[in-house]
């Protein structure tokens, strides 16, 4: 078996393994007695891990078809499993996004996590490498390997550093997602046997399958990805996990982990089972619209800020799945852009909540009010991110939502109209929360004692704010790199894979 590496140095391998190696080093040498050193080490690790992801988007060819930066080597020859990495437009942006969010997470925990620092930082670094692995794996088993392995550090993060009900949330998170992916395992084995012993995802794309097979495979994958996205009605683990997780955990969950599910649809469900995707699309669309509207309404009545943002994440991810299953270019592109933008915005919202929580140790909306009087800089950021969350033009939130709505209207006017209600609902819950928390008179004496952002907090929110606005004003770098891959995907999905009779 020959091994191929299309670029040197192997950027993808570096992106995957550097954070994992740094994470292990942090775990090995980090001590609470040397907390400062541990933090610096983790920061160096996250920054160094981010470096190899930069050439990915600077050297990415927007016009090329198929995977780029390919690395392929035999891994487990007994089962013809390969260490096969590569990215295309669908996965490109998630790699730097993951590495970048990890830096933010490390910074956000700087003064907050004081006990078991090494375990916190190490877990996030390892998690970062594993998640990048999911995005870049082109071998089915390798994908599953990373997909499942991400559960372990997240389980530890929620359970060790979470809130009072963390054990329940950690178990729910693990068992929910484990359940979904185990059925996927059976589907992956089926595809392996059916394709004559191959784990090449791209080969699976070409595999002819009957309608029954496709529907079953689609549903098996749906179990894993729907739980991860999460789609209504299997979303209930997310609010629990978000509320209990530490700030960094919430950020990574919302910004990256949910995207693993969305990405899975693009890489597996749609191209492997195109006929079933068309056949079952109405079901997915209905579920997505329920997520957008019903979950949007649920978000509005939340009393806990984290829960509110968690529900808003579910609603936004409903937009993503909607975009994928209306099968037109603008919809699918919009879905992907929405995922990237949501990575920045939801991450930033959770950071904002974290900033407040670190000072007041409360996430109840009712405990706040008039924060602007004491924290003007913070107020500016939270208003910006709330606006981005409800899709204000000139922020990144607008681009994705607008594209999906355009696509949805093209697909069917009423679908588009229902999807568009999200703009109203999103504005309602986001702005109403900001109004109650930030504006008004100073709510109580604790609020009166609040101190505004320090340099560290200002830096991390500032960077995210710049990215949010940049992506809103000039989304071309993102959309351009998507175009070819999305067109290829839709072209592929439009051709039936049913065997000829």
């Amino acid at each position, binding site marked *: 078996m020959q091994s191929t590496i299309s670029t040197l140095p192997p950027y993808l391998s570096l992106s995957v393994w550097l954070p994992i190696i740094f994470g292990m080093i942090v775990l090995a040498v980090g001590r609470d007695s040397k907390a400062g050193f541990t933090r610096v080490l983790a920061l160096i690790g996250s920054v160094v891990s981010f470096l190899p992801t930069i050439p990915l988007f600077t050297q990415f060819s927007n016009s090329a078809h198929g995977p780029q930066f390919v690395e392929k080597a035999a891994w487990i020859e007994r089962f013809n499993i390969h260490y096969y990495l590569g990215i295309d437009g669908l996965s490109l942006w998630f790699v730097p996004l993951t590495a970048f969010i990890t830096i933010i997470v490390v910074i956000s925990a700087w003064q907050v996590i004081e006990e*078991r620092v090494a375990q916190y930082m190490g877990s996030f670094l390892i998690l970062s490498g594993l998640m990048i692995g999911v995005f870049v794996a082109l071998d089915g088993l390798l994908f599953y390997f990373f997909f499942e392995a991400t559960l372990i550090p997240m389980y530890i993060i929620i359970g060790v550093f979470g809130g009072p009900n963390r054990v329940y949330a950690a178990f729910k998170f693990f*068992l929910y997602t*484990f359940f979904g992916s185990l059925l996927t395992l059976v589907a992956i084995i089926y595809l392996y046997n059916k394709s004559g012993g191959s784990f090449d995802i791209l080969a699976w794309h070409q595999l002819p399958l009957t309608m029954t097979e496709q529907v079953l495979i689609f549903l098996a994958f749906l179990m894993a990805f729907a739980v991860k996205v999460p789609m209504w009605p299997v979303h209930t683990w997310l609010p629990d996990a978000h509320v209990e997780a530490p700030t960094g955990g919430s950020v990574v969950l919302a910004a990256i982990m949910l995207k693993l599910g969305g990405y899975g649809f693009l890489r597996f469900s749609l191209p492997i089972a195109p006929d079933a995707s068309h056949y079952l699309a109405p079901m997915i669309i209905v579920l997505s619209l329920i997520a957008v509207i019903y979950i949007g309404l649920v978000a509005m009545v939340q009393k806990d800020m984290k829960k509110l943002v968690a529900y808003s994440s579910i609603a936004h991810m409903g937009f993503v799945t909607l975009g994928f299953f209306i099968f037109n270019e603008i919809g699918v592109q919009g879905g992907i852009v929405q995922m990237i933008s949501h990575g920045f915005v939801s991450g930033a919202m959770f950071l904002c909540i974290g900033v407040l929580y670190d000072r007041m140790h409360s996430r109840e909306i009712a405990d706040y009010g008039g924060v602007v009087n004491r924290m003007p800089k913070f107020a500016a950021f939270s208003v910006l991110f709330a606006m981005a969350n409800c899709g204000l033009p000139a922020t990144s939130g607008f681009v994705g939502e607008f594209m999906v709505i355009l696509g949805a209207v093209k697909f069917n006017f009423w679908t588009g109209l229902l999807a568009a209600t999200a703009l109203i609902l999103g504005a309602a819950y986001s702005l109403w929360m900001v109004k109650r928390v930030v504006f008004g008179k100073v709510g109580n004496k604790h609020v009166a004692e609040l101190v505004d952002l320090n340099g560290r907090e200002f830096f991390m929110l500032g960077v995210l704010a710049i990215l949010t606005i940049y992506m809103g004003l000039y989304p071309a770098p993102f959309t351009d790199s998507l175009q070819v891959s999305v067109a290829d995907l839709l072209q592929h999905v439009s051709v039936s894979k049913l065997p000829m009779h």
Partner: protein
Amino acid sequence: MNPMMNTTLSAASINMAPLSAEIFLVVASCAILLIDMFLKEGKRNITYVLSLLTLVGCAVITWADFNAGTTTYTFFNMFVSDPMANLLKLFTYLAVGITLVYSRQYSADRGMMSGNMGGEFYVLALFTMLGQMIMISGNNMLPIYLGLELMSLSLYALVAMRRDHAISTEAAMKYFILGSLASGFMLYGISMVYGATGSLDITTIAKLTAAGASNQTILKFGLVFIVAGMAFKLGAVPFHMWVPDVYQGSPTGVTLLLGAAPKLASFAMMIRILVEGLLPMAMHWQQMLLALAVLSLAVGNLTAIAQSNIKRMLAYSTIAQLGFVLLGMMAGVSNDNAANAAQAYSASMYYSITYVLTTLGSFGLVMMLARSGFEAEEIADFKGLAKRSPWYAIVMTVLMFSLAGVPPMMGFMAKWAVLQAVVSTGQYWLAIVAVLFSLIGAFYYLRVVKTIWFDEVVDASPISTPVDMRVALSLNGILVVLLGVMPGSLLQACLSAMTQTLGS
């Protein structure tokens, strides 16, 4: 191979070379028994080192044999040395060796090597291993049975070693009575197979059954008893009653001696008797194994949830894990087509090895937390281990996730290999049942992880462990990850060993 032995004994027209490891072990064990008699209590470490050296010696001999890769029959076809036997023996040595390292301090603390007791612990452990080696290499019903009895009798004695300890004594009684019953079943089945085919030789039985030249009714009856006997020894449901009680009651070191390596020997016994001897009857024994496997998965996983004693929990988890081994065993032949056989059985073999390595580590940690006068038997005793000793917390976490079958641990690849074999025979429902029970299983493994990481420390006493044990435990944990990330060569070794065994 030892050329000198070869030349001196070839006159007797029996080739002793394939037995070199066994002969060496017998001689060395007897020597150790004698040497130990003259050792003072404080010098018991000499026995320990000699025992480990014996294992190394066996390993060197077997490794050479394994590398030669040949299949040799000797003693009038009663004994076979083939790659499968050698591979399993190597892991048996490893398992017994690691067990001895883990249990040295533990057993010494519990007076199992002092007073009127000498180093019998080590010698008996070596004798159980001898029994296992004969089971693994037996090519005739009688040696297999003799090996089984040698192993069992030594284990009965080992379980009963803490004579003044009520629970141990109870466990020993239970194990002895039920074990004898199982042996009886087994022997009865063997006699029926003998009645049906007129032979005890595995190769001859295979030829006769394939030709249909045997009394089918009696053969099937015999098969039922043999499978029941094996299920007893493996601890598959519904023959599992002894497992939790004996696991819990035995001193933990002994639990490991009877919970780890013997599973490899039992696996070899299944391959020799069921596959090599009675493959034409596969459609019959597969149905029996199917029932055993599904019941084991169900009862093992569901009952484990209710346990608060970690040894009991691991006992039920063993039952569930063996369900997976059995699943692989019944995926070999479908529609009278044995094309899948090597693949399926090698998956089972890999699973057994995985199971042994993870079991070693988990009981090792139970022993590590125990100290003189205190048994860390409750799951609650693991509370806050992450703060007391982060490294061993990680090791235990690795082991638990491996048992749950989460990548990148070894347990994932093992589950994968077995599921792949099951799915390729078209038994999707079976794969889904197995997967769902794994999900249930994940719950109680996660609970241990939760206890280690999320709970506050209750017992803050420092963990004092001898260096040899620390090293072995760490290597054990690393091995479980390493063989999960790089399983290629071991999977390949299992496959080629199994292919050769089935081909000969």
